[in-house]
């Protein structure tokens, strides 16, 4: 017989970090939890003259798949009315309803900036604004890990990653979401060349580390695909499809590749 205190007896336990809470008495306070985790993973990598943001398209609740196509990567500031094309991309992963609300707010702000100032918002300014939006809800946070991508003032690939309350940093690459812990070490090794040394350059401390250099676009795209096909194998909340948005000086290109649907 099952132990009465085991998670199996007290209800389903999921792959999430928090186990079903158990109190010493059997009195349970039922209350409303305004958050949920919709799974999925996102990833961004920059190169010399481009930035790639990618995310899988699966949406989950617990062990259920809500849908196999729910995008997590969005163009920001695109305007059908004026024909203004977007030059900034945003990915959000975590609680999908908050993600959507955040995307819509940032989108409206970037458009308003364009109307009021007569010029598109720089990625740097947009990054700071996103941080302010997130911090504005410091005590009822948007439960999402956001990544913002685009090209900086010099035309170089720019990528900013955020925590749910607005701490942010510009980086070369970042993985977020359910499979972040699976993808990030792979990126450290393959993008920033961590733990890679130049063979025969010395013994012990004299051994020279391999310097990180910006990668060409084709190579980065393949890294993204490899990261996701591997994550799909090891994480149940990741799969179905891979959506990539590539920002270059010529605009934003969208690529969709199928992933395993199991």
């Amino acid at each position, binding site marked *: 017989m099952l132990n009465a205190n085991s998670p199996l007896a007290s209800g389903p336990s999921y792959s999430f970090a928090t186990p079903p809470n158990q109190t010493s008495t059997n009195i349970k306070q039922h*209350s*409303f939890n*305004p958050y949920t985790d919709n799974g999925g993973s996102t990833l961004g990598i920059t190169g010399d003259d481009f930035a790639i943001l990618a995310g899988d398209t699966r949406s989950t609740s617990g062990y*259920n798949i*809500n*849908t196999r196509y*729910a995008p997590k990567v969005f163009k920001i500031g695109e305007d059908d009315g004026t024909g203004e094309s977007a030059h900034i991309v945003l990915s959000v992963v975590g*609680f999908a309803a908050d993600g959507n609300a955040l995307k819509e707010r940032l989108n409206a702000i970037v458009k308003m900036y364009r109307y009021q100032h007569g010029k598109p918002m720089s990625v740097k300014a947009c990054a700071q604004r996103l941080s302010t939006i997130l911090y504005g809800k410091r005590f009822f946070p948007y439960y999402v890990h956001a990544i913002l991508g685009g090209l900086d003032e010099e035309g170089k690939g720019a990528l900013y990653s955020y925590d749910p309350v607005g701490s942010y940093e510009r980086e070369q690459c970042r993985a977020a979401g359910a499979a972040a812990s699976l993808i990030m070490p792979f990126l450290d090794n393959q993008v920033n060349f961590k733990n890679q040394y130049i063979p025969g350059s010395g013994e012990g401390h004299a051994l020279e580390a391999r310097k990180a250099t910006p990668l060409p676009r084709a190579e980065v795209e393949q890294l993204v695909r490899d990261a996701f096909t591997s994550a799909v194998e090891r994480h149940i909340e990741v799969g179905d499809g891979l959506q990539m948005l590539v920002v270059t000086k010529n605009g934003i290109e969208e690529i969709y590749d199928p992933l395993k649907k199991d």
Partner: protein
Amino acid sequence: MNHLPQAWGRPRNAILGAYNPSILQPSGPKAHTTSPIVTGTSVLAVKFKDGVVIAADNLASYGSLARFTDVKRLRTFNRRTVVGFGGDVSDMQYLDRLLLSLDIEENYGSSGHDLNALNLHTYLAKVMYKRRSDINPLWNQLLVAGLDGLDQPFLSSVDLLGTTFSSPTLATGFGAHLAQPLLRKVVDDEAKVGSVTREQATNAVRECMKVLFYRDARSLDKYSIAVITKDGVELKEDEELENQSWAFAEMIKGYGTQTV
């Protein structure tokens, strides 16, 4: 009664002492819905080449008691969209009134436009997300079925957290476990919606309603089904499950009083 209407219905001070108005002041935290009371179970829906089929049974349960057996959980809007409600029935009735007032308000306008299924879904998603953000949720999961601005089949879901998603087939509650896998056998991909006929979609939904009645203890054999196409909504609210076969029941072992 005396000449002071303010005093009517109040106990006389001489008998019980002065009236203490402080009891009228709300003190302590405000109470919100923290769990649903009277509930409806699954809603199912499938897209086909020129529209959407949606169904829900006619039961409203009070816990495990089958309390109301004639509750209609599909609601038409604008004669072009159907909303299916799962979860709390009183919150469903609130949303029903809200949609009625929205409909009236929209019809006073002279823009010539009316709200399509996509517009209605956006509206409901905002209502649900606002309510969850106030920590005062409407305890429902809704399916919105109809046609979008380009007259293409539209099907999308909203729940009490404001989470939205869209798929060729959708099912709420128990149906998400039991019916969704069966429905995905009919259409597993948006690209294949164009090759599904109305008959295929309706039959799949009716078959799933039967499976749900076999296995979901909070379900009923009387249900509503609606088909939404360009020609409008065909809603039938008094359907009954046909050709039930309980032969499988003999095979079930391990529950109840049976000891072998």
